[in-house]
């Protein structure tokens, strides 16, 4: 747990997405992308957001991160409105987004470049620690081009963790990986993010992979096609670790599919 964060009990709402709508302007006409989307993510909860391809799932994640300003509604972390990118919200991207001319350590340090409150030694220590907990001890001076997809994504996770975020946003983080690598990284990432080893208090995952969602999520929010609105919300009360071969698991997968179709 990061220093400076007050102990918060499980179940406390950390993220509130409150009646968020977004219109893009297309030839001066508003093109609605998100229509009145509301959801919450609580302490120790992994919330999965799914919906048809192109419905605006990733856009919603960027609004939560403060990268895109909604047309109406707002996003709050605890009681503080998100008005732009901030250190307590981190994001892991589908395509890793690493700087190829920087080593793994330098990529993680890049995520800390705006932290003027830290000395260079403190930044180095944080970056090395983040790489270690992401399973990359020994890979500090390896360049992204020399890493496999799974390891590149571990660097992405380390970079996101290094800033001691309260909120972790995952945008299809396993979809660029082969199935076996994704399987392993899914398990490890969940265990890591929900552990007291990190500062993360809540996780919001965007994914179109329904089995992945049922494997990981405490709550599933299903969006409609564009303009996206919430068509259903399910609390997944399957015990962990979840058995992907069980009938109960498939029943949950079916429930999500029936909301999607």
């Amino acid at each position, binding site marked *: 747990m990061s220093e400076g964060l007050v102990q918060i009990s499980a179940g406390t709402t950390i993220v509130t997405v409150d009646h968020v709508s977004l219109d893009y302007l297309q030839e001066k006409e508003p093109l609605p992308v998100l229509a009145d989307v509301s959801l919450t993510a609580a302490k120790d909860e992994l919330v999965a957001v799914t919906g048809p391809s192109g419905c605006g799932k990733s856009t919603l994640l960027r609004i939560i991160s403060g990268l895109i300003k909604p047309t109406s509604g707002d996003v709050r972390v605890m009681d503080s409105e998100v008005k732009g990118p901030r250190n307590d919200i981190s994001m892991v991207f589908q395509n890793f987004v690493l700087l190829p001319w920087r080593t793994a350590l330098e990529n993680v340090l890049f995520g800390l470049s705006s932290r003027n409150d830290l000395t260079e030694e403190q930044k180095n220590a944080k970056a090395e620690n983040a790489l270690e907990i992401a399973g990359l001890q020994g890979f500090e*001076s390896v360049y992204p081009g020399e890493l496999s997809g799974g390891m590149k994504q571990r660097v992405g996770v380390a970079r996101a963790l290094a800033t001691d975020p309260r909120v972790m946003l995952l945008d299809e983080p396993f979809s660029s990986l082969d199935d076996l690598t994704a399987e*392993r990284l899914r398990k490890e990432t969940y265990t890591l993010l929900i552990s007291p080893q990190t500062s993360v208090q809540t996780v919001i995952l965007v994914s179109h992979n329904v089995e992945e969602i049922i494997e990981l999520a405490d709550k599933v929010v299903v969006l409609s096609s564009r303009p996206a609105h919430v068509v259903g919300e399910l609390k997944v009360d399957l015990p962990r670790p979840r*058995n992907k071969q069980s009938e109960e698991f498939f029943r949950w997968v079916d429930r999500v599919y029936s909301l999607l179709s």
Partner: protein
Amino acid sequence: MAEPHRPLPTALEMPANVRGGQVISLVEVTGSIGRRVDIPKLADELGADVAVLLPILDAAEMLGLVRVEKGDVHLTELGLKFQKTSKEKLKILKDRIAAIEPFRTALELASKGKQITAAQVAESLSEIGLKWHYQPDINESLIQALLIHWGIYAGLLKYDGKSGKFTKV
């Protein structure tokens, strides 16, 4: 005639594109289904093509974690132990890959604190007829990738990306 410094035909070669995480997944999923599972079912459970699965099975067999017989994959005693432990996984890998090429040659060349490159390992292995690709530059980059992904992952080698040199841990 000088005796070759290692037996030629029996050398174990790590398949070029297999990574540690894939082998770990394979063993964990096999163990979650049962101690014995047929290859098509395993491919189905993993959502992987059989063609993709075969080199991963070769690597797992080389590491002594599974045995493949008549289309079935069996977890060995070591595989069972590997599946159940989270703390000792890397130690088991470390112990096993030191006997497999190109790690074996890399460790030999990097003994006594020497810094080595993938090119040196490739050259040494080419002398005894071990290549992962007929084109020397591709062969070298495949060896480099294997040394990085397995050698560092298992804690056998250290690597400096700026100089491209490996040292023994």
